[in-house]
């Protein structure tokens, strides 16, 4: 039986976590993630979830607690945003290096300064080299569903890397939509219990993450990279199996929407993909062949799939909610990096939009896409929706 309800995005995520049954949750509240861990603590208080809940004194402590818990073989969860994720930064590398399948729900939010509580994806994009798998949810349903996929891939013996499931703060965490919620019984069939072969006990003391001298360190980063390559295959398989099991969700690592023979490819991630699809459909009605590539996971980066969907297009346009000052948008760089190795290198345009919660209406995207189509934009990276500013240069 399908349980379909109108719920807030954060509540859908908390519900998914309840059915996945982590053993240990450690959390520290931060906007716009707060409703997720609040609801989980309520489940535990009501006896609806039997887990150890630790109120940490910071995000650094929260993720550190999970590293310890995960090393003992526990299934673990936390959720955070923005400065909270930034404060976890050091420990994120530890979790990945120790090959601990921790899962975090990230409610994407801009980084300070200036202080801003609203949505962009700078927080998680900035963690790209930490060795964590990164998923980006297009809507609330996907934020809920991807949690099951994240645990399954992370806990797979061939992967054993942590995952973050990213959802746009406020836009998804605080919106209400009809969501098909997991039943505990159906999730059991898709996601087996986590029983690692190697784990810490008092009877069998082990060392995780000890000193690796130059003789050994490179090999640790190498095997993480190899595991990430296997994760790509596992994610693709898990998506298909999830779809068979639940009759919903994407079946491709890099789903494409729109005309297969479109000569413009627009790549985006998260909730922005929905708006881009609407614009592409409208432009299609006006006679322009625009297809949309949805970057469902940023790590591992689906480079082969990117080359495949860009094959034969004249122009690639990337819309993203992050920027690397001194360079360009991170997704744009990686899309171009992938396409360097393709035979027909299309023109490439990248735009930072929607930073710090600025809404990205259809008219903005339509205007930018049309400027690229008409050749009114220079190839390369731009701020897509910046207002005129006067810089004070002293």
């Amino acid at each position: 039986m399908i349980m379909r309800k109108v719920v807030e995005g954060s509540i859908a995520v908390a519900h998914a976590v309840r059915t996945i049954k982590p053993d240990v949750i450690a959390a520290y509240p931060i906007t716009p993630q707060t409703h997720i861990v609040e609801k989980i603590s309520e489940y535990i208080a009501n006896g609806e979830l039997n887990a150890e809940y630790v109120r940490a004194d910071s995000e650094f402590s929260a993720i550190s607690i999970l590293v310890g818990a995960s090393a003992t073989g526990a299934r673990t969860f936390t959720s955070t945003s923005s400065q909270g994720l930034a404060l976890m930064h050091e420990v994120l590398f530890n979790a990945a290096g120790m090959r601990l399948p921790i899962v975090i729900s990230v409610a994407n939010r801009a980084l300070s300064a200036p202080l801003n509580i609203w949505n962009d994806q700078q927080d998680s994009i900035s963690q790209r080299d930490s060795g964590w798998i990164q998923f980006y949810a297009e809507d609330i349903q996907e934020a809920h569903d991807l949690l099951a996929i994240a645990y399954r891939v992370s806990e797979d013996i061939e992967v054993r890397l942590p995952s973050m499931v990213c959802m746009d703060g406020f836009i998804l965490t605080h919106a209400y939509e009809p969501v098909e919620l997991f039943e505990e019984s159906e999730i059991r069939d898709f996601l087996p219990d986590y029983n690692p072969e190697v784990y810490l006990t008092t009877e069998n003391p082990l060392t995780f993450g000890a000193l690796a001298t130059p003789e050994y360190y490179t090999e640790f980063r190498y095997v993480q990279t190899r595991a990430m390559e296997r994760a790509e295959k596992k994610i693709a398989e898990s998506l298909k199996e999830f779809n068979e099991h639940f009759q919903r969700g994407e079946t491709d690592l890099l789903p494409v929407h729109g005309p297969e023979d479109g000569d413009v490819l627009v790549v985006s991630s998260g909730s922005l993909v929905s708006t881009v699809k609407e614009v592409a459909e409208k432009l299609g009605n006006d006679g322009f062949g625009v297809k949309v590539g949805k970057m469902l996971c940023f790590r591992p980066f689906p480079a082969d799939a990117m080359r495949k969907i860009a094959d034969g297009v004249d122009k690639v346009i990337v819309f993203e909610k992050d920027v690397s000052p001194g360079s360009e948008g991170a997704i744009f760089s990686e899309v171009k990096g992938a396409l360097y190795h393709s035979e027909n290198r299309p023109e490439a345009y990248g735009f930072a939009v929607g930073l710090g919660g600025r809404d990205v209406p259809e008219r903005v995207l339509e205007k930018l896409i049309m400027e690229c189509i008409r050749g009114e934009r220079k190839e390369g990276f731009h701020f897509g929706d910046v207002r005129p500013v006067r810089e004070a240069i002293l």
Partner: protein
Amino acid sequence: MSVFIVEVRIHGRGGQGSVTAAELLAISAFKDGLYSQAFPSFGVERRGAPVRAFLRISDSKITKKTQIYEPDYIIVQDPTLLDVERVDAGLKEDGMAIINTPKRAEELDYGINTELKTIDATRLAIEVLGRPITNTAMIGAFAGATGLISIGSIKDAIMERFSGQMGEKNARLAEIAYERMR
């Protein structure tokens, strides 16, 4: 593609339950067999500050995630907002404004050119709830004025959201407002 999609913007002040109003309307529409989506304007929540909440109702899955710039309907919970901002910005020509005010529509000198309906929701709320919380009155008024959502679903949604007497009183308030607007 949607056969129909209706976009609603709710204007209120922090503490008046505008976000809850959007949520209750989304749940009610879903109970009527429609797709729905509700979300706040993501401000920093402060009591008394102008806030907006958004609602979409459709007969098919709603993919849009942007704020609403050209609403079909606006609901104004607090008449003092009319002095502060253009609540009717972008309101479609064939749209409708539903405003909480003791004034009759023709007495309201605000320059809204579309269909305009008024209801003294504050007074009704004080009479029924004993408190000037108008959100359930306004969603009842919306259902009555537009015919888009059944009052039965609205009452169910309210009873699920607020327990006991609070739920019953709010459901009654919504129904009174609904009848006034029909």
